């Protein structure tokens, strides 16, 4: 069984984010970049499927040359090979453009399953998985928290408002992974040392076709300071009045 895993390199969720001087991007010069946490669930799911069903795992990423370190991490976890679609301006690309480039590369390969994170934590767009499914005319199940494979039949559980739904489809398919699907493994030292012997194929792309442009980025508004309205039971009427009239929450 051949599995393709979509991987994106993103700023560490613990990094302090600064907006670049042009006001349109995140300044990546001094922040740590990591594998998108949702993609780690996808890599782990692929590794578990490989352990039971055998096969080969190929990681595919679109990003600047530095994104190769994210791919190495995935290879150290146990993936077999990787493809980097090199695009220094990938941060400017909209989801449709990204999906188109990824689809073009995926189409040239034999695969049974495409796995990805439900979203990248930097842009939060949640679109690339679905757009690839559309490009390739494949069924997609998004944000899965459980996965079961029986022959060609995929059965997955999604968390929905107030409950869970079980969804099935046939392979080949696209699945995007939600937190809770699994506990991604740490790459062990053997994996790290083996990763450098695995091949990362690099593909160059010309830009173009960008349809959506970021106009500006702003920091979220500063949280207002809390207000102490008094102490003990005497403060309750005033508190209720403020919650009702000013905060309008009751």
């Amino acid at each position, binding site marked *: 069984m051949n599995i393709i895993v979509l991987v994106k390199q993103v700023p560490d969720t613990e990094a302090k984010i600064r907006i670049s001087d042009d006001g349109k991007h995140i300044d990546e010069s001094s922040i740590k970049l990591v594998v998108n946490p949702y993609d780690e669930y996808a890599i782990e799911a692929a590794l578990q499927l490989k352990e039971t069903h055998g096969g080969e795992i190929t990681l595919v990423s679109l990003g600047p040359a530095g994104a190769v370190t994210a791919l190495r991490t995935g290879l150290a976890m146990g993936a077999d090979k990787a493809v980097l679609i090199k695009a220094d301006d990938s941060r400017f690309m909209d989801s449709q453009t990204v999906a188109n480039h990824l689809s073009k590369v995926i189409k040239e390969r034999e695969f049974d399953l495409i796995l990805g994170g439900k979203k990248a934590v930097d842009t939060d767009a949640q679109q690339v998985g679905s757009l690839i499914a559309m490009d390739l005319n494949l069924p997609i199940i998004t944000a899965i928290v459980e996965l079961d494979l029986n022959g060609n039949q995929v059965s997955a559980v999604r968390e929905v408002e107030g409950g869970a739904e079980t969804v099935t489809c046939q392979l080949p398919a696209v699945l995007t992974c939600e937190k809770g699907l699994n506990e991604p493994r740490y790459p062990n*030292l053997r994996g790290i*040392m083996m*990763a450098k012997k695995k091949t990362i194929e690099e593909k160059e792309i010309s830009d173009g076709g960008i349809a959506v442009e970021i106009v500006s980025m702003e920091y979220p508004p500063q949280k207002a300071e809390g207000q102490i309205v008094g102490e003990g039971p005497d403060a309750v009427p005033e508190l209720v009045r403020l919650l009702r009239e000013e905060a309008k929450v009751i």
Partner: protein
Amino acid sequence: MDSLFFNDEHRMLIDMVKDFAASEVAPVAREMDAESRFPKELVNQMAELGLMGIPVPEEYGGAGMDTVAYAAAIIEIAKADASVAITLAAHTSLGTMPIVIAGTEEQKQEFVPKLASGEILGAFGLTEPGAGSDAGATKTKAVKDGNEYIINGGKIFITNAGHAGILNITTQIIENGEIKGIGAFIVPTNTAGLKIGPPEKKMGWKASDTRQLYFEDMRVPAANLLGNPAGGFKTFMKTLIGGRISIGALGVGTAEGAYLKALQYSTEREAFGKPIHKFQGVGFKLADMATEIEAAKLLVFHAAWLKDQGQDVTKEAAMAKLYASEVAMQTTTNAIQVLGGYGYVKEYDVERYFRDAKVLEIGEGTSEVQRMIIAKEILKSVQ
């Protein structure tokens, strides 16, 4: 620092160990310290990750990484818990590497793969009541009897002893009533005549296991002699230089762990209407900590890098160990000062880093002994 010493494998190792330390080690550190509980579960996890044999060649089941990688891993673990870091460091530098460096091919085949995989834990016994840095004063005797040696004596302050599968111990070697010199033996811990004492109660490194060893007519096969006593012992003692680099790394990690807590606290705690880092008394302390940690780190990685180039690092390893352990003491003291009263209570952890720092100026050669080594080395250039 990053681009000076680290390649991609180093960076991946550091990321992995950092993650492991933050999510598995840090949450249990305070509790293990309070209960003086040996981190058995964490040792198993480190074994699964391949951390028990970082600098051991691949042919003997290790990761085949270099000293820079090993030092970096020790730093990351020590940032979370020095007890876990010393358990790993003693196992690797003292329990395993002497066999890798001074062992015969048979000894390496028999013991190293089990050590590097973490199947067994290694320990090292050199210190006696009257012999530590002065290894020549060793009183424990091994008397040759046919194909065996009969060993009598004892060792003190032996890290990992209670959980180890093998011990590397130093003894006088006596053949036909004649002292041949100081030698070392690999002793499996199920050897008859070996008695291991109860865990010592210590000021710091509380989750690390420290015990006495007693040898009463303990018979060890001559095949377990590590390096030959006539000259081989010197080679054997050289293996301890790697240990000094790992104690330097422990110093850096211990200092950095405490510093990061102080830095964070200084942005949260307010006094006289502003965060305390805005007062120079605090800001300058933090600046000094950061500077000294950076300097210690450079010494440690430089010594490790030189060692990886195959150079003699007697002086550099002693300097790294001396400076980093003193920086750890200084930084943890000041970290408590930044936190004030909170620094003195266990809930904020910096007091643990302070207690864990002191032993770094003592173990594997005191600061005084490191200065003796450095003085001897630097005087070689003018004498």
